[in-house]
């Protein structure tokens, strides 16, 4: 198969790429990388991602890492197939790009810490999260999500009128957060909750997240 994704269903970054492929209705092969045994730091994965992270991606001769670069490559290369994920109008695409940056630099760093404390620590070590860290990060998340609530009160999707990568990039981490106490932070904001329900109910999301993580 031409498209190969090296990653794990436990990784939001891997899921970001799989979601993109599902939206575009593109076949791929998922080659599992076992995080628990540190496979991502082994030479055969470092050769694909020198930072020792997943996912790594292959489309014929094209080899990439960084999930948000991969999703943009897929969206441009397979434009016209499945869902259009980048607006054809350059100005609208730029606004989508703004909210992709917001996800990457404001939403993800905070939610990644929460996911580590509330999900990964339990799964990997059977330990509970640090309450102080969780409280602090939840507070940070609330400030960020206040901005999202204001944005979504004026715009159906983050990037504008249409679903785009700006929304898609959030989906895997939001799905993780919905399984934790952080769900309340989202539920407390009506426009945000409506948007969450919309994006998680998309057929591609149901298809990708329906697969068990282990």
């Amino acid at each position, binding site marked *: 198969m031409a498209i190969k994704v090296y990653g794990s269903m436990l990784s939001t970054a891997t899921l970001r790429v799989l979601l993109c492929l599902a939206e575009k209705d593109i076949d791929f092969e998922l080659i599992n990388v076992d995080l628990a045994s540190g496979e991502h730091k082994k030479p055969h994965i470092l050769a694909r991602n020198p930072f020792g992270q997943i996912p790594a991606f292959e489309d014929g001769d094209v080899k990439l890492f*960084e999930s*948000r*670069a991969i999703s943009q490559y897929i969206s*441009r*290369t397979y434009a016209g197939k499945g869902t259009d994920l980048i607006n054809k109008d350059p*100005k609208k*695409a730029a606004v989508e790009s703004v909210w992709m*940056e917001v996800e990457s630099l404001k939403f993800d760093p905070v939610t990644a810490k929460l996911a580590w404390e509330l999900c990964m620590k339990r799964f990997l070590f059977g330990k509970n999260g640090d309450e102080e860290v969780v409280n602090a990060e939840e507070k940070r998340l609330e400030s960020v999500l206040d901005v999202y609530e204001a944005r979504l009160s004026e715009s159906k999707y983050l990037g504008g009128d249409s679903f785009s990568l700006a929304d898609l990039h959030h989906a895997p981490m939001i799905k993780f957060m919905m399984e934790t106490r952080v769900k309340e932070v989202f539920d407390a904001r009506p426009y945000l909750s409506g948007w969450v329900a919309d994006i998680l109910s998309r057929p591609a999301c149901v298809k990708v997240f329906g697969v068990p993580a282990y």
Partner: protein
Amino acid sequence: MVVKVYGPIKAACPQRVLACLLELGVDFELIGVDLDSNEHKQPGFLQKQPFGQVPVVEDEDFRLFESRAIIRYYATKYGDKNRKLYGTTLEEKALVDQWLEVEAHHFNDMVYTIVLQKLVIPKMGGKTDHDLVQNCEKKLEQVFDIYEQRLSKSSHLAGDWFTLADLSHLPGIRYLVNECELSHMVRDRKNVNLWWNDISNRPAWKKVMQLFHELS
């Protein structure tokens, strides 16, 4: 009408945008924002940028924030002025995006923390967390090791020509080799050193530095 860029010249993210506009020969007006007096957190500014950060760009009635989104937009809009800046093929574009992501996540996180701890916090009367700084410096050395490897295969990060991926590093590395006193991270690595000398001597970046010295 010229493009308006809101932000102080001394801040990294406005510098990123100015470097790009200068590379493309796009006229701009720089409108200062006084971070020391918290101008960026006032309601008037929050209307432009809801997270209260710089820069913001206004191009007639079109407004953008997030410096890496801004440079991608202008590199696309003025692609005819510099075809290679954001790649000409889908594969080239993907590599530029890949190394822009690396800069934003692996590189910038470390530099930002080091600058915050070593420069900003003391200036505000606080105490530097030296353990944190040491930790970040160690991680940054590892990042530069990866860059050294990469730059042994191509002259620039995304290929054998200057792109947004290289440009995006200019403000951060400037901080490292100057105020942060970490120039050895660049000088001790043959390929990184060659690369830094190349990109920091480009006329557009030299013009940003000129403005930096004039306006500071």
